[in-house]
């Protein structure tokens, strides 16, 4: 999966986790937490959804990599390169 598709996948997950948020204006280099009402349980939801949808295991020490869209995509690219868009 390429970066653009990974971003689409993250937006799709966020739309489920944060259904009240407007995601169209999301700034890629700004932390999710600064733009959206997300708490630790929501971040665990992102981890869980990646596990459920793409069977990606993210170790706890790497959770900080999911801070913003750009850092998340950068982190996931090598992990998702062999995954076809569902």
């Amino acid at each position, binding site marked *: 999966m390429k970066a653009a598709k990974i971003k689409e996948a993250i937006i799709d997950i966020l739309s*489920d*986790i*944060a*259904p*009240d948020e407007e995601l169209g204006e999301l700034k890629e280099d700004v932390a999710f937490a600064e733009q959206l*009402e997300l708490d630790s*349980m929501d971040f*665990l*939801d992102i981890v*869980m959804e990646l*596990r*459920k949808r793409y069977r990606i295991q993210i170790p706890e020490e790497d959770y900080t990599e999911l801070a913003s869209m750009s850092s998340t995509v950068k982190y996931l690219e090598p992990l998702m390169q062999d995954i076809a868009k569902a």
Partner: protein
Amino acid sequence: MVAKLPDRERIVITGVGLTAPNGNCLADFRQNLLDGKSGVSEYETRYFGKTVAGVCNYDALRYQKRKEVRRGTRAGSAGVYCCREAIADSGIDWENVDRARIGIYVGVTEHGNVETENEIFQLKKYDYDTQFWSHHHNPRTVANNPAGEVSLNLAITGPHYTLGAACAAGNAGLIQGCQMLRLGECDIALSGGVSESIHTFGIFASFHSQGALAKHDDPVKASRPFDVDRSGIVVAEGGCMTVLERLSDAKARGAKIYGEIVGHAMNSDAVDFVLPNPERQAECIGFALKRAELSPEDIDIVSTHATGTISGDLQEAAALRQVWGNNGHTVFNNTKSFIGHAMGAAGALELAGNLPAFDDGVCHASINLDRVDPECELPGLVANQPRELSKVDVILNNSFGMLGINSVVIVRRI
């Protein structure tokens, strides 16, 4: 005599918020009870299949964000809706109230079954690999969840917890609120009960296995307490939360007062897991009357608990006859005949639907009483059509539950 108590020890109902299968506010609920309009419909649930149930259609998004609904439970959502409605109804100056002095006391029959069933259902897709088990499971299933969601939604920092009291829970929530106000633990008690039980297949399957689940081709005819053709319980969801205050506080702010809780009691049968005991039920009614310093004939309306099971209705009828005999004054009705058994919400909902009788002087009926079971015969049973009474001053509300838990609340016009 309760009336001799100082106003600061007298507890009054100043707000009501509810969702029932036939109404999402007290005015609509009451009107449908007077009009004989049932809220029972066809229903289908996982594994169990087609059945009937009392389903609510309140607008959860009126008071919750989508995310709150997603993260929380149905019981929590019903609790939020009912508390918000009750607070609005009470006319309390919400922006200036001390939220550390508000207590939240929510009766529940059970909690956690819905979420646990849902998680296991989801986990099956992952071959029961528990790494796919949700981190939301614990906060959703802790026993205080329905009260805790109210605390979060309304930023109430006083005490919150649930009262696990089977189907006596709605009354138990009200009683707890009274007690905490009298103890000075809070100044406003959000008290009542909620039920999400229709969302667990287990409750239907268990009642079915017990031979206690209602069956009828016409859903609105399925719930028929005291009728000879009754076949069991119609499970319902719902909620009813009240604002309780000390009479002194209610007077000071010029609040509208629905009535005063002048008597209450809880006791235990201590004989059987499921079968009720009329001796202990009658004793519980007696304890509540004694606390209120009232005689049976002082009660104008008895809101019965009867659920439509063969044995349970017989037992309550026996208890009622034991207390009231043939006094010729007291009348009896039953709300479950309209909406089914709203479990943890039942006690509070059934009382609330009767409160407007203080104003309109009418006892709503018990519907579906085509042929009263001779063994459930009660002088004063208001069958099928509401009955106008000259005046209603006192209402007694029964709620009983499994493991032999009994509760009675008495409310008097003020």
